């Protein structure tokens, strides 16, 4: 019984809570010095071999998922729970002033931790890139069809906005249309779609020596000779030259950009040997560039996170607790 009592006393001690807070603060601060969640190769390049080994062996590269963080956090949550229950019980029993603000904050922090736990197991996310007219399947028979994508830029070239206009379908039946923007996500069933990024797609029409048109996409390649590979990378349009098509995808003047890489059979790996910018009507080897086209694909982040509602409750509790404490303190000072 005595052992249990002293253990209970230890758990609810402010000293333990402060030591844990200090530990979590110091180790979290140290973790910001090491970029988190990168490949092992990254740390081998960035740090000395000893340090890289130390980072990997201690899981410091994913500190917030490591036992160094999670175990003290678990102990802290037990301490906080014990403190909260003990404090509440004492206040309710005795005739002490009913100052429940700090208790509500503590409960809020505990709920927040529960939210964090739910997030570990209840969150999924995936990234999809869609071109106009393309669609992707979601959970519960939903489907998203991209009807148009617009990328607006400021005059200095910085992004102004991305508009992804989508139609939501369920079992192939259109339900609604919506424009997804950054800060304006779309909820579809349990999932939410966020405007996250974009990708540029390019094609080039090449005429071969026999007069045949071959359409190549970014990443397509051919062997030039034993020493090199030619890879089609992207299209560079000449600004203001106009377009040959009604969708404004294929500029009248522009370049197909190819990279010449050392062939692996040459024994030197895939090193970059040269970059060739080939204008429309010009040739690369025996191929004539006939037409180049470029367009953007929207990057949508599809997120399902079951912890959000718990976290919102936690925020409301913390907000309420903080406000209540603040108001009570002001009243006490005025009295």
């Amino acid at each position, binding site marked *: 019984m005595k052992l249990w009592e002293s253990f209970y006393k230890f758990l609810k001690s*402010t000293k333990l*809570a*402060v030591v844990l*807070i*200090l530990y*979590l*603060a110091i180790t*979290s*601060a140290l*973790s*910001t*010095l090491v*970029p*988190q969640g990168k490949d092992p190769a990254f740390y081998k390049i960035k740090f000395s071999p000893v340090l890289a080994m130390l980072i990997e062996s201690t899981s410091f590269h994913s500190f*917030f998922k490591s036992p160094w963080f999670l175990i003290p956090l678990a102990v802290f949550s037990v301490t906080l729970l014990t403190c909260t229950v003990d404090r509440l019980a004492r206040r309710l029993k005795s005739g002490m002033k009913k100052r429940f603000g700090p208790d509500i904050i503590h409960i809020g922090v505990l709920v927040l931790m529960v939210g*964090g736990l739910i997030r570990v197991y209840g969150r999924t*996310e995936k990234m999809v890139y869609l071109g106009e007219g393309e669609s992707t399947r979601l959970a519960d028979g939903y489907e998203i069809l991209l009807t148009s994508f617009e990328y607006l830029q*400021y005059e*200095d070239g*910085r*992004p*102004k*906005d*991305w508009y992804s206009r989508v139609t939501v379908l369920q079992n192939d039946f259109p339900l609604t249309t919506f424009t997804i*923007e*950054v*800060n304006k*996500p779309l909820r579809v069933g349990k999932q*939410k779609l*966020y*405007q*996250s990024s974009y990708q540029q797609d390019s094609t080039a029409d090449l005429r071969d020596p026999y007069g045949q048109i071959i359409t190549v996409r970014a990443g397509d390649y051919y062997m030039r000779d034993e020493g090199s590979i030619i890879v089609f990378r992207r299209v560079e349009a000449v600004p203001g030259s106009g377009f040959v098509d009604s969708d404004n995808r294929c500029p009248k003047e522009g370049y197909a950009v190819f990279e010449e890489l050392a062939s692996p059979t040459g024994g030197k790996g895939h090193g970059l040997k040269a970059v060739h910018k080939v204008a429309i009507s010009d040739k690369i080897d025996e191929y004539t560039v006939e037409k180049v086209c470029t367009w953007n694909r929207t990057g949508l*982040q599809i*997120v399902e*996170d079951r912890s*959000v509602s718990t*976290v919102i409750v936690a*925020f409301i509790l*913390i*907000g309420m607790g*903080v*406000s209540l*404490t*603040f108001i009570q*303190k002001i009243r006490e000072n005025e009295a």
Partner: protein
Amino acid sequence: MISTIAFCLLIAAIILQIIYLFRNIRGPDPFSHFFILAAGLLLFTAIIERSVKINFVAITNTYESLVFFSGAIAIVIFVYRLRNKGRALPFMVFGGTVTAVILLALTSSPVSGKEIMPPIPALQSYWLVLHVSFAFVGEAFFAFSFVAAIYFLFAKDEEKKKRLDRIVYTSIGIGYPIYTAGALIFGAVWAQNAWGSYWSWDPKETWALITWLVYTGYLHTRLVKKWRGKMTALLSIIGFVFTIFTFFGVNYLLAGLHSYG
């Protein structure tokens, strides 16, 4: 231009305060807080002027944040001086004004970027406005507590020490809930809305949490453990050093989502 006038007013306030401090006149000078108020209002006018130009609330980069932060500190000093009338501690007003001037002087640094630029898509959110403005108002109180804590460490008179300890506690008591709402809650809501993730352990988030933990530690040691004096003053100083590191250090030393401001 408006910020420059505000800067001059703050310098004029400092000169006036120094004259009074050196002449050993008891109590604060009767005018400088009006200069400080005018400077604070001008700094907020500068924010409004920039906001009109970019058609959004202009607290989206380091320059604008510094102007807002400095303006908020100026208003906190004025309120302190007004509430305490002749009993206000002259060194508190002086220290607060110096802090506001230092922050404003940093706007001239090349790294703060004065250009008026409309925000990138992620920053076009009113949650961001709440996040930044509440965080800086909270931090303005932390700055005031920092001045009081420094003053506490050098003060000899016990009565004065008691008053300074009270100022540290009151400033943190007011700043803490505002900072909690702004830096942590509104920040998380904004991140959820913009990226679908309310917390990413980004260096700036982590340091904002560490700062919050330090002030949480301060409140617990003072209220539960009944600590007073040197230790709590030191905690308050550490808290403000972390506040400043979260604002500047993380931007320039550690890479992350918040590298714009």
